[in-house]
């Protein structure tokens, strides 16, 4: 396992470096010169040049890139151009909320998908299987933004059980915070849960159709034991890969969900950054997301390899 980690870690770092190049270059393609817009409409060319100098925009690209990475490594994220304030403060403000949202959603994904997948694959009652299938299909078929607004209409406007939007700190007021979290997390979780449940169900069904299951059944091993001790471990590796992919969707989906539920996270910050051409913010946030991804993918591969000994990494 350790040797595997040693092999995968450098490639993870490689992705990170490549992504940082990409992010850096993509954002240089955005039309519009930040110095001109920062200087204001009435500023003369000297004022614009001064701002370019202050921001280092007059340096060669490579110098700018190295400077940016250097700043990141020293934790000096600098000021934002348009949103105002220091980028580290902006990220600090949003990261807790986004972590709450995505982790809450991830928890819901597993809580929904695991029983649903197992139920769907193992039940012998046709109506139950049909219901499971209908549920995953329906949840997949309704786009998350519609789910979100329907949830608001149902729980906030009609039943008045949950708040329509906003956020409380989980540390200060846990009871209220959970109520604020429920709808956005559910909205974010449902599509991923459906995908995961479907993969898990398919995986389990495949595993249960294998000969060894028949053998085991013939040998008198209980159905429950077969499912939990044999089929599930066999179905898990591919499910974990899908879960890894779904975490990506969760982070991306958070942008939409944060917008719908006025959730003050990094999604809203990056959207603001894109809209206001505040590319230091966008740059830093994109790279942050990439870093999270690299970590998640690494973790996914590790778990996959750990669960599925058929894969060997010489």
């Amino acid at each position, binding site marked *: 396992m350790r040797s595997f980690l040693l092999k995968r870690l450098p490639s993870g770092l490689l992705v990170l470096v490549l992504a940082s190049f990409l992010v850096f270059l993509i954002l240089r393609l955005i039309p519009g010169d930040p110095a001109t817009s920062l200087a204001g409409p009435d500023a003369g060319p000297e004022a614009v040049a001064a701002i370019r100098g202050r921001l280092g925009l007059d340096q060669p690209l490579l110098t700018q890139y190295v400077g940016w990475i250097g700043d990141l490594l020293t934790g000096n994220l600098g000021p934002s151009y348009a949103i105002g304030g220091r980028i580290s403060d902006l990220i600090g403000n949003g990261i807790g909320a986004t972590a709450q949202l995505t982790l809450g959603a991830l928890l819901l994904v597993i809580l929904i998908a695991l029983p649903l997948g197992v139920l769907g694959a193992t039940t012998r009652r046709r109506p139950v299987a049909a219901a499971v299938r209908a549920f995953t299909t329906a949840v997949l078929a309704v786009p998350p933004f519609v789910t979100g607004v329907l949830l608001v209409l149902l729980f906030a406007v009609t039943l008045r059980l949950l708040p329509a939007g906003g956020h409380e700190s989980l540390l200060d007021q846990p009871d209220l915070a959970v109520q604020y979290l429920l709808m956005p997390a559910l909205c974010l979780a449902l599509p991923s849960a459906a995908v995961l449940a479907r993969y898990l169900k398919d995986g389990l069904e495949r595993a249960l159709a294998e000969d060894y299951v028949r053998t085991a059944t013939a040998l008198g091993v209980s159905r429950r034991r077969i499912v939990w001790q044999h089929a599930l471990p066999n179905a898990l590796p591919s499910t974990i890969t899908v879960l890894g992919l779904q975490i990506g969707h969760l982070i991306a989906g958070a942008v939409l969900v944060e917008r719908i539920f006025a959730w003050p996270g990094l999604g809203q910050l990056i959207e603001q950054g894109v809209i206001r051409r505040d590319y230091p913010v966008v740059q830093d946030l994109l790279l942050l997301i990439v870093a999270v*991804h690299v970590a998640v993918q690494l973790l996914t591969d590790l778990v996959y390899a750990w669960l599925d000994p058929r894969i060997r990494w010489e």
Partner: protein
Amino acid sequence: MTALTTPSAEAPRRTARAHRNRYLAGLLTGRGLTGLTLVGLLALAGLFAPLLTDLDPDAQSALALAGPSADHPFGTDDLGRDLFSRVLHGIGTDLAITFSAVPVGALLGCSFALLAASSRWADVTVQRAFDLLLAFPGIILALAVTAVLGPGRWPVLIVIALAEIPGFGRQLRAGILVQREREYALAARVGGASRLRVLLRHVVPNAADPLIVQTAVALSIGVFIEGAMSFLGLGVRPPEPTLGSILSQSVAYLSTHPTFAAAPLAATTALVLGFTLIAEALNRGIRR
């Protein structure tokens, strides 16, 4: 887990013809037919929209937010445009976008996966490329692309295609990895078959099954991405109707004019439902 090994190392013998028949058998089940009917009807409706209604989807009138009537079967939107015509044309736009973007993404993804199977070096490179793409998931990718290109039809196409590459690629690659280590593949290799032959004749056909599910998911994700981008104001430019744009427009009136949302919601749901049912049917067909 190790105690239970597959007792037989026999290769699942499947020729291309047998495969086709299985797919066909799958599609001819109730589920498959329902899916085909849904997608087929919607596709026909989208394709022949100009014949089904003589109302211009962009023609506005003073009659805004009207409920369903004989003149306007689905009612009208907030600018007095006929929703029947808009939804039909919107289906057309969505299908045109997803059916051109998803195959591009799938083709690229699968090509990369095959490339990855050719050598260890290629595998590492392709894996990093996928990781790199996955680092910009869905809407993040949409934000990055539209930040550079601005909103419009092409950015939506590009985002969908890019977003589908790693899904297909990784799925196929994972399948190849598993199948390649199976006894039948090892046996074939030991038996003197070339690497490429084993890969194309034995490994890929068996590893391709999950791609069927992936295709259905991809098509629905395509519709999602279109909708999400419309919702964030990054999608196809108005007034051209898309399911996502009509839907996001109707969301503002959910509490007051729920009939506005009904048609685009039903069409979107039916479309994705259709894709999903087809995929499920195919999936069951090949597993039979």
